[in-house]
């Protein structure tokens, strides 16, 4: 019988310099010479991505912390945000997480 496939997990690049600034987090990427500022929710996701997590795990954690999130909306936003982080090279490539 085939094994049940696990959902893909993502993790932030552990070598990137960053610092929490009150609610926000600044992330510096010396390789691209770019600097990114994550807002409160982005900063929380960055925190969660210290360990490899799936989109569902991140969305569930946020839903538990932020009251009133419409069902499904959080997941879509998390997915979009993670795609953005991935596009900027701030996440480990899939398979290395």
């Amino acid at each position, binding site marked *: 019988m085939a094994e049940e496939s696990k959902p893909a997990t993502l993790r932030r690049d552990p*070598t990137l*310099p*960053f610092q929490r*600034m009150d609610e926000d987090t*600044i992330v*510096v990427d010396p390789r*691209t*010479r770019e*600097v990114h500022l994550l807002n409160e929710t982005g900063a929380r996701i960055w925190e969660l991505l210290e360990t490899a997590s799936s989109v569902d795990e991140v969305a569930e954690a946020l839903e538990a912390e932020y009251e009133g999130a419409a069902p499904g909306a959080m997941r879509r936003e998390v997915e979009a945000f993670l795609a953005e982080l991935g596009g900027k090279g701030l996440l480990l490539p899939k398979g290395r997480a």
Partner: protein
Amino acid sequence: MSGREPRCQDQEVIGEAHGHALIGQAQEWAYRNQVPLNASIEITLRCNIRCLHCYNFDRDEPRAACDEPELSTEEIFRVMSELREAGCLFLLLTGGEILSHPDLFQLLDRARELNLSVQLLTNGTMLRPGIAARLASYENLQGVSVSLYGATAEVHDGVTQMPGSFRRTWEGVQRLRHVGVAVRLKFILMKQNAHEAEAMRAQAAERGFHYLIDLTITSRHDGTHGSLETRIDRSTLEQLYRGPLRDLGHRDAFEPTEESFPCNCARGNVAITATGDVQPCISVPWAAGNIREQPFAEIWRSSAVFQQIRSLKIADYTKCGPCDHRAYCARNRGAALTASGSYTGVDPFVCATAEIVHTLSDERAAESAARAAHEPPTGPQVRARLAVLR
């Protein structure tokens, strides 16, 4: 903190092209909240060259026997963790010559584990091919600043007192570029190389390197003053600012706030010396405590020295406050302290520089106004005149 620019040239992020506004925002946050976002660690005072102007100590004399031992690698690890815990993001490793530290790569490993953005200051002579390639493997290495003291081997090697250092430094710089590490050249302008100022700039420009020109020569932190003999005099500075450094000899007036002269020392900046003293900046030899005796956070938060610096008002700067040139002055705290013995004192050379910059800025403004008066009126000006005639 609008209009305030608390970062020194040395604390610019090397090679950072796209994030100036965000970094400015982070610096502003650090200043406001007193978070040591920028830290320098002097990992060793050992050096393979003997620069005439060195501010550490007189390198032609044997080191004083009473010197404390330098921080061990373990102690540097500990202070790096403490700095990170306190909010540090930008870490500068300086010396001495950092590449003479036997555990430099272990320190870089730890900085990477701590998610610190690292910049290095080196004389470049020990950047052998393997070293440059290894440095390039650090994803968190923001860049390397390399000091140069002339446009020719004769002049540069005369300053370092090491034959071949000019060639070796340039080789090192090229190796860094070859492996993709961002490099910033740092030209220290002094008596020995003032006549090569233009050539030094041209060399950097031709080879496509970012550079800065630093006029800071101070007394040494061992209390000796021989380094000052390398300083250019007022008349040379004025000639340079009217000639090859014309673009640097003027600036927009920058009035200090009512509160104080803007400076990130002890607010967003901190430095740890090779023997563990905690200073407001690496160029300001005023110890607020020592990390061998107290946790860093305690020194940062409550040392008398840092409390005093943070509480300074413009009225405490008795000479600078009423000075006519204050809006044109870079107010180098290290120079002021080593020249006068007081953090709020002055260094006459810095005062002279401010006066020259003020004069040249006024002259330039007058030239611009005169040019504008002779230029044909623009469309809006013509319309404005017609409106008056009606």
